[in-house]
């Protein structure tokens, strides 16, 4: 932990103390995200909503940007949310969190609202967070005296508008804006943005940044609980398999999440008070205890890569190898010696 802390800057609201749940049996039975949503079968983003709501508990305010978790999820007269929830615009996740936290801070300080720690969680997809809302999220992460969590559920496309490429879509993916054709097999040639590490590196005073995957649900919930307890603005990026956008049988969602981690395409880590820790399988990859599976095993299972030929698999493999073998901090921070 660096010596200068933001606590010295001024008065802060307290956070809730949300201890980790030690194993699935310790997880509370209460649900704060229940029936009513209309998401696809096997939708891991919906699963993430459920885990997040459970982890935060009843004294939470949740803001949700436009996207599947709004349109398919939060329908008039059948809202699944037991906790207060409000829509925010596609690029406004950071602003929604900031405005809500600012209101609580001002009103509690001035005695216009009973003082108590209330979780503020703002949720966005990759289109809303990695692309359009990046600047507002970055700004939110600079307001160190507001307690808030920004949770990006990354299904690797603008899913709700019928699966279009985003800055977080993997290389080569077939989306409705990047379809393979007779002349151009690969229409999407950008590499997935390294969002969590970029935000952590760019906002070193933020006390918690992490990556999760719902295939590891207890870990994901505990990371949400840690982010909410630690104070200040925090960011969690979740990789969520999406049967519709990735084109696979919904029953494989969980498995695909695991494969994303095991191939090294989705590294799991947290940066807590400036200290980086690789997590789960990703930690074992770095320690040499787990040999990364070939990316082909993960990509082949998804229709969005059905047009891939050997050279495409090889390219993705090479880039993924670089990430773990050449990066300054494997799986997290690039730059070469």
């Amino acid at each position, binding site marked *: 932990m660096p010596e200068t802390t933001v606590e010295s800057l001024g008065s802060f609201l307290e956070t809730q103390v949300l201890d980790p749940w030690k194993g699935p049996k310790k997880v509370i039975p209460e649900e704060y995200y229940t029936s009513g949503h209309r998401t696809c079968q096997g939708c891991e983003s919906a699963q993430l909503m459920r885990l997040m709501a459970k982890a935060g508990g009843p004294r939470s305010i949740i803001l949700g940007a436009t996207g599947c978790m709004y349109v398919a999820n939060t*329908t008039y007269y059948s809202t699944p949310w037991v906790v*207060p*929830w409000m829509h925010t615009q596609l690029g406004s996740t950071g602003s929604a969190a900031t*405005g*809500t936290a*600012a209101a609580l801070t001002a009103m509690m300080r*001035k005695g216009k609202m009973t003082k108590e720690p*209330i979780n503020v969680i703002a949720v966005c997809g990759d289109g809303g967070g990695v692309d359009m809302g990046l600047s507002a999220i970055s700004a939110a992460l600079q307001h160190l005296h507001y307690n808030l969590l920004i949770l990006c559920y990354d299904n690797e496309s603008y899913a709700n508008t019928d699966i279009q490429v985003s800055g977080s879509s993997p290389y080569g993916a077939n989306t409705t804006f990047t379809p393979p054709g007779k002349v151009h097999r690969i229409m999407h040639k950008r590499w997935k943005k390294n969002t969590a590490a970029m935000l952590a590196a760019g906002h070193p005073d933020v006390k918690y940044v992490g990556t999760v995957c719902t295939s590891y649900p207890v870990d994901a919930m505990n990371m949400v609980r840690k982010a909410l307890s630690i104070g200040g603005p925090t960011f969690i990026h979740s990789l969520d398999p999406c049967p519709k956008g990735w084109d696979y049988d919904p029953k494989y969602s969980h498995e695909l999440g695991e494969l994303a981690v095991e191939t090294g395409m989705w590294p799991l880590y947290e940066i807590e008070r400036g200290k980086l820790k690789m997590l789960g399988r990703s930690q074992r990859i770095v320690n040499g205890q787990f040999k990364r599976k070939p990316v082909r095993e993960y990509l082949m299972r998804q229709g969005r890569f059905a047009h891939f030929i050997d050279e495409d698999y090889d390219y993705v493999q090479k880039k993924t190898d670089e990430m773990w073998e050449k990066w300054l901090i494997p799986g997290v921070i690039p730059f070469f010696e």
Partner: protein
Amino acid sequence: MNPPSTALAEKIGGPGSGETEELISGSEAISHVCRLADVDVITAYPIRPYDTVMQYVSQMIANGDFDCEYIVAESEHSQFEIVKHASAVGARVFCGSSGVGWFYAFEALAVTAGLRLPMVAMVGNRALDDPGAFGVEHNDALAVRDLGWMLNWVETAQEALDTALIAYRVAEDPRVFLPCAISCDGAFLTHSQAIVKVPSQEMVDSFLPPYDRGDKQLHPDNPITIAPQANEDWLMEMRRQNDQAARRARGVIIEAYEDFNAKFGRDYEPFLERYMMDDAEVALVGMGTMGMPVKVAVRKMREQGKKVGFVRVRWFRPFPAVELQEALGGMQAVGVIDRDYSFGSSHHSGTLGTEVRSALYPLEKSPKVVTFIAGLGGREVTADNVVETTDMVFDAAEGKLNDQDTYWIGVRE
């Protein structure tokens, strides 16, 4: 631009009056309202000319004269989204912008009204940039006229202060719950100083109740879902509710002015200012600081025996159609001077012209309406311009000028 310095004129309020007099600009006048209304969350982003208000606000906070969460956002979109969300939680908010900044926030502006979230914003009216212009034009604020925003234009720093207080009261009234923008002409009002009576905290407290969102407040004690997704099965009913709120705003504004006039000793007519209208035969209509040269010209023309009066529209939304029918119904001709444009519109007028013509149309004997565009990009509207305009209105009354067209005043050919 001016540095934020509070030029204190002699304080001649004295005991009992509850007001102090200060030599301040329109922007500084509105910054006093932020303090007096005990606003909870304010967001800023730089753009001329509105941003002077934030310079004053930030200085008051720095000096400890005022306590709020003050956030310098990274864009106008965020600026308006932040206060929108703060308002949903029950915080009193203030915001503002100008020209292209207001347009950058357009998405937020639309949903703030759609969500029935009260907010008071200052628009320092400014041209919409390219060719890089930043003088006053009214197109910025007018762009939200269809969305549920209440809009008003003020003429003086005093009116800016008073209207901002009234705006909070109306916007936060549960019968209304709509945002309100106070338009101040860039430079002419945002940056020009005048003697302003600044009310005491007691006076403001007696007029402005706290903002209470009731069962619409977003809070764990009240776990509602705000803006769940709805389409054709419900949206029309929701839009209809917004329409009803906008209709109710009229009565709430009238109520607020009555109370304000009584408590603050002013004599505002809520929607219009009428100048030498009693025996007028033709009338000019306009908004904002243009009122000053127009009044000078009207006085001059009265001395020459021309029976002309002036109606300054204070509230553009809700639009005072009834008041305008009553004020203008008996005129031989009406000349509407817009400080905005609406290219390709019927009669090629500005937006005020179209609205006034439409308001007068149902009258049994509606006056001729002739429309003008003047003062764009901050060009001064001179008293001579106004005399020239008025002569054309008299010509229209006598059928000597085509009243189906729009005339640009003070423009090079």
